[in-house]
């Protein structure tokens, strides 16, 4: 019995201490006033919509990425951080410079406002092709143009999710 008490005293609390940072968010949203988002990030989001408005031939299937990452309550910062990092992958694509510029503003601006304290080692983000493993087989069969189209559709959905999550954060701030 004495051994059992030691187990509970010296075993469980450290476990709690280890698990606590994982459960908590490591990012603090600084731009809750909405000024930076409204005057900088939203300008770029609108320009990205304007650039891509003619190309809306996207399927309604939601990629698996968003099934794993969503802007749930108390997880907004985490989602934005993940989404912002995902945006960086698109900078490597062969896209227009103006498009890249606005993607950079959205990505880095979001990360700047999140003010994440713990710099996670940026996990090697799976390439865009691996993001949707279920479609991996399909992409092999489709042409490169179709592949690019799918990536752009994913990008537009990602941007829309980011915009929605920011609006959720700011509206929640205004209510308080």
């Amino acid at each position, binding site marked *: 019995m004495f051994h059992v008490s030691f187990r509970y005293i010296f075993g469980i609390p450290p476990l709690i201490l280890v698990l606590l940072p994982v459960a908590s968010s490591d990012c603090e949203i600084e731009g809750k006033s909405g*000024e*930076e988002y409204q*005057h*900088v*990030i939203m300008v770029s989001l609108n320009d990205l919509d304007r650039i891509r408005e003619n190309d809306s031939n996207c399927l309604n299937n939601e990629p698996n990425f968003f099934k794993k990452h969503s802007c749930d309550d108390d997880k907004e910062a985490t989602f934005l951080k993940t989404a912002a990092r995902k945006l960086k992958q698109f900078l490597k694509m062969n896209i227009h410079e103006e498009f890249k*510029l606005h993607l*950079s*503003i959205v990505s*880095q*601006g979001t990360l700047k406002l999140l003010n994440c304290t713990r710099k996670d080692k940026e996990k090697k983000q799976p390439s865009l092709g691996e993001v949707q493993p279920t479609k991996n087989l399909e992409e092999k069969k489709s042409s490169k143009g179709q592949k690019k189209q799918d990536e752009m559709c994913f990008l537009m959905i990602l941007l829309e999710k980011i915009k929605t999550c920011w609006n959720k954060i700011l509206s929640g701030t205004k209510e308080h």
Partner: protein
Amino acid sequence: MHRMKNYTHFFMSAPKGCRFTHVTAPLKREHVSASLTAARLFSPGDLEDAEPDYSFSCYSQLEVNGSQHLLRCAFDDPDVNSTHLGFEICDGLLVAGCLNFIKLQEIYFIETNKFLLIGDSKICVKLGQRILTCRKMNIVHIVKPEAPFDVRVIYREEANDFVVTFNTSHLQKKYVKNLIHEVAYHQEKNEHDWMHVNLSSTKLTLLQRKLQPDAMYEIKVRSIPTDYYKGFWSEWSPSFHFRTPEAKGPGKMEPVLLIISILSFFSVAVMVILAGVLWKKRIKPIVWPSLPDHKKTLEQLCKKPKKNLTVSFNPESFLDCQIHKVDGIQARDEVESFLQDTFPAQLEESEKQRLGGGVQCPNWPSKHAVITPKTFRGDASLRCLAGNVSVCGTPVLPSSRSPECREGGKNGPHVYQGLLLGPGTTNATLHPPFPFQSEILTLNPAAQGQLLLTPLGSNQEEAYVTMSSFYQNQ
């Protein structure tokens, strides 16, 4: 001591490669001297060996060339030897690392679209690879807008005001869109008496009454960012000059309007005078015709004799008179016989007088007044006794005789005084001054003023009718 202590700690924690670094400068201060920090740490005697003043100031202009932004820095001290000095900016960029400025004479600038526009950036002065001084700034807080242009002033005569309009390139920009504009104007002869007006739109209205008439004015505009973007006033726009119109006199009117008003006044005056002159004779009878009043008309016809003649239709005036019913035909016969018997001598005398005098009643009508026999019928007839002439007045008619004739008694009309003597009037004596002839008296409209008619009782309606027809004939 407290300040020195803080600076000391700061100095010790300076990163490698930096002699000292600054904490974020206050937003309102444009010129933060990094070297002043060192000056505070040393006594005044050590200033001779102090580093030169590398304080600098910067401002940014966003979207000056499409999506390209401009950042411009310069040393505050113009005597600084900037031969080998350079500027760089780190942090707050879309790219990793730092960006170097381009030097143009004494000005350092960088034109790029790699500004994140979120968070602070660090701008450093470096000599080669050695950092001399740094300053933390936020690019969006040192924005200097572009100067407004195309200032115009339009005078609106109908509104008596001046509309000032101008243009700014920030209307088409995506970031710095909200600006506060300052309009400054003054009379050119008053060099330092400037008036300032702040507005957020690009249109301003100046009232004419607040400006001097017939004066030359100068006006210019500048802008400053507001809301999220902050910074400095832009340069002044090119001035615009305009002249205010001359003041109009208090009674000054256009010539055409003046002539029209004078003519209208005189027209109204003439109409008023004519209306006053012609009112009674011409206008009133048309506008308000008077209805004939038979009683008054008859009264007018029956002129009052000078002596004791009462003409009235008020029965109360004749209370003293005895009213007897008279048979018209019988009365006439009786009168004829009576007159023939009673006054033959008087008749001769009067005829002689009349013929001798040869006086005619001036107003005696040529025609004879006629009293129809009808007038002698009726239930009542008015008779007057001779003795009561004063009360009754001269009855009458058949006295178609003028007062002069009556009084004179000389020349009387040949009238038939169909009068009216009844049985009850034995005492009545008449003195017909004139000889009577059995003639029918005719009512002559021309002798309106001279005739006296006897209103015969029950024949009042007929007399009334006769009178009305008489009046109509008139």
